């Protein structure tokens, strides 16, 4: 019953937002997001705590400014997932010719993504480029309709709540699909250093590369001042990751170094309010 009410409430809010122009939607979501992060102490403190790790020399005011803007960008990005199709004309793909060449091959590709702005635009953009994308998503139980958003964009989605998503991912890899995996969250799979702190990271992107013998690309989104999105796609491993734990771990370590560089370049795009560094 609780899920039913939440699902219908969200559907109604999205319906109302869709009646408005995109600029107005953005203003409303930005206003609301600021109220949320300033009103919810846990969310604000977590963001500030993470920002102090990355920017130890910033004042709390400077870090709070980044926290608020990143929360606004992420909130707007999440809401925009409800009208992904409308964003087709708002995307600028940023990549080189060799990256496009990898995407045009039929051998599949592993794509490591980050939680920046409208992060679900990554599989959407990759679908447009390859016509053959699979993504893994943790679909909230109260938002089961979310699957239809992916399906209407022709994105094959595997729900993390499904039993044994790894098997489904391996099948996608075997079918030579472009497999998009968020790779910047906490998971007890391999140790990495992130902003100078020891933490744990998922290995999915490297595992898929190793199993499917496919390259790894890194991809993230940036919401620009003109309200258009850059979808940046970079080559990360041109060949494939060797099939041993050390190589998989090493690859994830290097990927995290690159994540750091991207986050330092776009600190207001990454989701800071996440419990990234756990004991």
């Amino acid at each position: 019953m609780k899920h039913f009410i939440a699902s219908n409430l969200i559907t109604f809010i999205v319906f109302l937002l869709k009646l408005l122009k995109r600029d107005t939607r953005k203003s409303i979501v930005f206003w609301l997001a600021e109220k949320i992060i300033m009103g919810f102490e846990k969310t604000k403190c977590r963001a500030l705590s993470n920002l102090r790790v990355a920017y130890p020399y910033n004042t709390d005011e400077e870090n709070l400014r980044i926290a608020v803007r990143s929360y606004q960008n992420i909130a707007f990005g999440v809401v925009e997932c409800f009208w992904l199709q409308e964003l087709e004309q708002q995307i600028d793909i940023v990549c080189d010719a060799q990256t496009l060449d990898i995407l045009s091959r039929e051998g599949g590709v592993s794509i490591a993504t980050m939680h920046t702005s409208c992060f679900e635009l990554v599989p959407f953009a990759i679908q447009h480029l390859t016509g053959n994308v699979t993504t893994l998503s943790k679909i909230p139980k109260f938002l089961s309709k979310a699957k239809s958003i992916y399906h209407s964009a022709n994105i094959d989605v595997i729900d993390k709540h499904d039993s044994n998503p790894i098997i489904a991912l391996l099948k996608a890899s075997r079918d030579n699909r472009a497999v998009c995996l968020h790779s910047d969250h906490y998971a007890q799979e391999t140790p990495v250093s992130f902003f100078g702190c020891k933490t744990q990271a998922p290995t999915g992107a490297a595992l898929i590369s190793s199993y499917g013998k496919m390259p790894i690309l890194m991809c993230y989104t940036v919401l620009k001042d003109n309200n258009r999105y850059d979808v940046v796609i970079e080559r990360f491993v041109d060949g494939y990751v060797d099939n041993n734990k050390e190589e998989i771990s090493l690859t994830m370590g290097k990927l995290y170094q690159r994540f750091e560089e991207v986050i330092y370049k776009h600190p207001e795009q990454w989701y800071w309010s996440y419990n990234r560094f756990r004991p």
Partner: protein
Amino acid sequence: MKVESVVKSSVCSLINIHESELHENTLLFGQYAELDSMGVVMLLMEFEEKLNLNTSNIELSAELFESFGSLVTGVKCAIGEKVN
């Protein structure tokens, strides 16, 4: 027999138990922390290398990794060996 011994040695090495402890009915998936996503991929690629097996021929499913017996059966089917 070779398939069974290769699968046994690979599984035992991954989950760190003695071969005498692994039987046809020994449950695998969900029972050993080592048999996580990385463990599954490592096993498949070890079979590929040691048995000259194309893992594309394995019918991937959660049931495959349910027990040692089901894993041996799945691998045998993939290489076209007769299953007892």
